[in-house]
């Protein structure tokens, strides 16, 4: 088989699994609504809160309001990216379809690629309406930060993916009992991610944990960008940490996939 034929075969299999999820969303409006529900709700709650604060505290609160709304929107990027991968995997598990998928010639990395592709679509479907709402209701334009916002987006998406690979690995290891993590795990990282406050606010003992997460560097960078400064050092840290964590996530997934094949868990994982 030539390299070109192999690549086309891979792309076809990745598209096959992507098509499966697109078909699912086409036939299930509650699933589509759910994608937008939380980001839009979050934006409403925090938008009205910041409007109230700006009304009370005046111009000093305007800067804080921008940081708050930017934080809410960008953190949703990480959350939706993580849930996009983990919940798409769970969809296969819930439909008892994993056995069919894993006996097809799809490679594990192709499956992960498809899940990531679906996650990007899910994230955009959820977050773009919230970004639009922030602009229409509160005159907050996330893209006014500048082109660097794309790098913030990309880093938070990648962070969502490696966290999701960790969740999928736990599901492969512990079965459906671990599925609650698909919704909750990233919320547990929120306090360390410096979404709404700088890392320096955290106790000294906790700061190394925060600095080991790409998200804290992204949000430090975002606050600097809102002040008109691009902090390339923070972005470089975010990229480097994402590479390390993504490699760890891939290793963990590959190890747990092999373990699942050793234990025979791929057929009974839904139980």
């Amino acid at each position, binding site marked *: 088989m030539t390299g070109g034929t192999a690549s086309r*075969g891979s792309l*076809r*299999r990745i*598209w*096959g*699994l992507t*098509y*499966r999820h697109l*078909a*699912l969303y086409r*036939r*299930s409006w509650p699933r589509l609504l759910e994608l937008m529900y939380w980001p839009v709700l979050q934006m409403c709650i925090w938008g009205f809160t910041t409007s109230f604060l700006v009304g009370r505290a005046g111009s000093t609160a305007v800067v804080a309001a921008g940081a708050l709304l930017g934080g809410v929107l960008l953190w949703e990027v990480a959350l939706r990216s993580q849930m996009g991968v983990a919940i798409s995997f769970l*969809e296969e598990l819930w*439909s*008892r*379809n*994993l*056995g*069919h*998928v*894993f*006996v*097809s*010639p*799809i*490679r594990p990395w192709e499956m992960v690629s498809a899940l990531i592709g679906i996650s990007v679509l899910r994230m955009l479907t959820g977050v773009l309406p919230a970004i639009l709402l922030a602009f229409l209701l509160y005159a907050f334009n996330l893209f006014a930060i500048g082109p660097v916002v794309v790098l913030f987006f990309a880093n938070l998406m990648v962070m969502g993916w490696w966290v999701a690979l960790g969740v999928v690995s736990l599901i492969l290891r512990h079965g459906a009992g671990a599925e609650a993590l698909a919704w909750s795990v990233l919320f547990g990282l929120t306090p360390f991610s410096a979404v709404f406050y700088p890392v320096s606010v955290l106790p000294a003992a906790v700061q190394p944990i925060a600095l080991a997460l790409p998200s804290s560097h992204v949000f430090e960078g975002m606050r600097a960008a809102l002040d008109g400064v691009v902090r390339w050092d923070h972005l470089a840290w975010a990229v480097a940490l994402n590479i390390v964590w993504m490699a760890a996530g891939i290793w963990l997934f590959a190890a747990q996939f*092999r373990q699942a*094949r*050793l*234990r*025979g868990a*791929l*057929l009974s994982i839904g139980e």
Partner: protein
Amino acid sequence: MHAIQVQGLTKRYGDVTAVDGITFSVAPGGTLGLLGGNGAGKTTTIAMLLGLLIPTAGSIRILGHDMGRDRFAALARMNFSSPYIALPSRLSVAENLRVYGHLYGVRGLEARIRELAAQLDLTGLLDRPSGNLSAGQKTRVALAKSLINRPDVLLLDEPTASLDPDTGDMVRGWLERYRRESGCTVLLASHNMAEVERLCDSVLMLKQGRIVDSGSPPELLDRYGRDDLEQVFLDIARRGTVAA
């Protein structure tokens, strides 16, 4: 070259041995039945043949490919059907077949879907969600999925379980015809002795993970002095083999 060649296949979970050093082969175009009671090791054997389960020991070669090293090359030319593994219920029949057509890299996919739908009487069901179908219709859809890539090796785990006698007979007749026309190699695990007798040209009797007897259905009937495989099965399940 054998289509399926299994040598000393063993699967242990801790102290429990699910499959204990079985060796067998299936010639191209042959149909092998795996017979055995619950816990005999049929599903474990099929899972290892499909690469879902890594054996503790032994080797599997399918269509010349070592399943330990090169399973994806073999999987592209194989397929599998089991009533215990579902297809996504919210997707229509056509969408499900399209998904698997893409996963198996089928050329002329839409034409293949129409062809299978016509053969398996699914044309009127193509736009129906798979979850809304009857058990018989689901079985035919699962069968269509398992044939989407025109497999050279087809593994069937109780293909007619939970079907009424009429539908079961229709499926068996269709499988018989398909195998004859396509030259496909089939491995069939079943509790339905009449099905095995009708479809298989050789049979492995499994008990506690071991092959306790093997042969063509007429050979087994002759050896045990019985009229049908069900009686042979009961002899082996309750007393052991003739030799034992």
